[in-house]
């Protein structure tokens, strides 16, 4: 008698990859199930794990049965006379009828074994999915991933320090390399020297897939190294924020390419300012869901939506009861190099460095111009740079005193360094293959986890879906809004309690009886 309590129910193992798309989604943070429910969930998952064990044991018996069959003239079992049971029981071979029966038995037993093995996997997956959906499965980076990540950080730190120590030429090199990389991927594959061969595409895709899990370590090391190489410009900070501060300085002061304009002009966008000559079709309708709100941001990019560069949307929604709420849609970077609007690489760096930036200033001005009241909930939805800006505003002292923030949604945005206040539902959507969301040096697992703050990450390369696997090798596609909308669809489809809860809290603010949308364009100007 040891006095120990009842044994803990077994924990189902995750299914072996590649996974069905919904199984490639991992959720961090949020409110899981209540304690009383979690016991029941764990018991149920434990039961199916035991079923899986029984089914595997049954499959092993079937395989044993198939191996007990002796087939004359065949190697293996038949080659060891006396080692196996024989139908005649005395060691002499049976006739042709026995051979046929033996073969039929062997086939039937193997078929049963295969079916039971597959069923055991299915049962394991059922329990694993249940625990995950309830927030009771502890997701962890493998030891190998952590070890490689540490090496990558060290290497990137050394590279960043070397570049930072080279002064302007090195820092400009970092900037140009980064800008060139982003621009090259954004503008298209034609920048590969006109020889956009299958080999180039394949190697880029393979590199993206291979390096995606370690991109957070690359940026953490590089940022820290650059910050250490230029301590004055980094203001003594040696982590990502320090490196970003150094590079933001470069973006402002770089000869010819830099832009140090400190002023900002925010103007209302007219229908004729859009390439189509009309406002987006959804302008008069509230978003039906968080996914809908996210998808609408595509209308704010010059390329996909024909909007003027640096445009944000502010939608006013009035409910049947007259209650007013607001949704602000914020697109991402539209120029890797410093531009005449704040949706550029300079703002990305300023946001990462925690410095004053044009994007959050433009959003605040748009809120003022729209007449948002202090008690009217505002939901901020941002993609990429827009996501960083949205999270930054929420964290900025005084913002939540001026505005009642009803929720923040970010897609493909590095927000791990931003501390958001409690009580405001925050949803982050990320994928490692997009790289961008890891430029804060944090993987999705390392984002702050609170009851109100949920990060949903989808590892595209682990999916059985051909579309997902192709997207995994394409940074632009992995970063696209459609990819993040699909991630949220899959997470909600799995019934994950944490995603459902945060999405419902935010989604309740989006729809209403009537809606009207105003578009604002921000431009950098000399003060």
């Amino acid at each position, binding site marked *: 008698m040891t006095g120990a309590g009842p044994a803990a129910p077994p924990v189902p193992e995750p299914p072996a990859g590649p996974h069905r798309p919904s199984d490639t989604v991992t959720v961090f943070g949020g409110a899981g*199930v209540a304690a009383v429910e979690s016991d029941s969930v764990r018991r149920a998952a434990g*039961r199916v794990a035991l*079923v899986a064990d029984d*089914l595997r*044991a049954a499959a092993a018996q079937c395989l044993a049965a198939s191996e007990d069959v002796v087939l004359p003239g065949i190697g293996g079992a038949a080659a060891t006379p006396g080692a196996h*049971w024989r139908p005649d029981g005395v060691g002499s071979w049976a006739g042709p009828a026995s051979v046929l029966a*033996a073969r039929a038995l062997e086939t039937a037993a193997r078929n049963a074994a295969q079916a039971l093995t597959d069923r055991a996997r299915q*049962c394991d997956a059922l329990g694993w999915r249940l625990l995950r959906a309830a927030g009771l499965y502890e997701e962890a980076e493998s030891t190998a991933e952590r070890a490689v990540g540490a090496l990558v950080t060290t290497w990137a730190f050394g590279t960043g320090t070397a570049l930072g120590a080279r002064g302007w030429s090195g820092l400009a090199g970092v900037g140009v390399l980064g800008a060139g990389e982003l621009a090259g991927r954004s503008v298209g594959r034609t920048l590969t020297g006109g020889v956009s061969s299958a080999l180039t595409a394949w190697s880029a895709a393979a590199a993206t897939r291979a390096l995606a899990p370690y991109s957070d370590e690359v940026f953490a090391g590089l940022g820290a190294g650059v910050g250490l190489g230029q301590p004055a410009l980094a203001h003594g900070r040696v982590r990502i924020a320090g490196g970003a501060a150094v590079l933001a300085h470069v973006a402002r002061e770089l000869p010819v390419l830099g832009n140090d304009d400190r002023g900002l002009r925010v103007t209302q966008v007219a229908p004729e300012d859009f390439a189509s000559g009309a406002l987006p079709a959804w302008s008069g309708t509230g978003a039906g869901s968080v996914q809908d709100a996210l998808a609408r941001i595509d209308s704010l990019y010059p390329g996909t939506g024909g909007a003027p560069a640096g445009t944000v949307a502010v939608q006013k929604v009035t409910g049947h009861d007259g209650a007013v709420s607001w949704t602000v849609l914020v697109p991402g970077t539209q120029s890797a190099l410093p531009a005449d609007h704040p949706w550029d690489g300079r703002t990305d760096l300023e946001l990462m460095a925690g410095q004053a930036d044009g994007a959050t200033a433009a959003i605040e001005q748009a809120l003022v111009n729209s007449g948002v009241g202090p008690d009217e909930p505002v939901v901020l939805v941002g993609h990429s740079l827009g996501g960083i800006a949205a999270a930054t505003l929420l964290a900025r002292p005084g913002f939540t005193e001026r505005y009642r923030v009803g929720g923040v949604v970010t897609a493909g945005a590095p927000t791990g360094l931003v501390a958001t206040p409690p009580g405001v539902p925050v949803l982050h959507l990320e994928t490692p293959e997009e790289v961008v969301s890891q430029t804060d040096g944090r993987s999705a697992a390392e984002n702050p986890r609170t009851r109100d703050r949920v990060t949903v990450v989808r590892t595209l390369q682990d999916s059985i879906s051909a579309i997902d696997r192709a997207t995994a090798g394409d940074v632009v596609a992995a970063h696209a809004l459609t990819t993040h909308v699909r991630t949220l669809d899959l997470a909600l489809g799995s019934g994950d309690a944490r995603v459902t809860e945060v999405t419902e809290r935010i989604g309740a603010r989006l729809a209403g009886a009537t809606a009207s949308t105003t578009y604002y364009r921000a431009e950098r100007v000399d003060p």
Partner: protein
Amino acid sequence: MNGACPAPARGGDDPAAALAKALELVARGTDQLRAAMAVEWDAPAAELYRAAVGEAVRGVVQDLELLEEAMRRAAAYLATGATA
């Protein structure tokens, strides 16, 4: 263990006995699976889980048919041996 095909159990050199043991294990598993459907959680994930367990139970019933087929084959095999 998960994801891999199990190693054959140590046989008693009698395929019928091994299959009978498999049948016993699957029957127990089926009962456990039905019991596992009961989860006190009012949430979409629990609904999905119950539906998926129901589907798994139906799948195990099909697996049982394969197992019974194997047992019939074992009986036929034994019969040929007995008459050889």
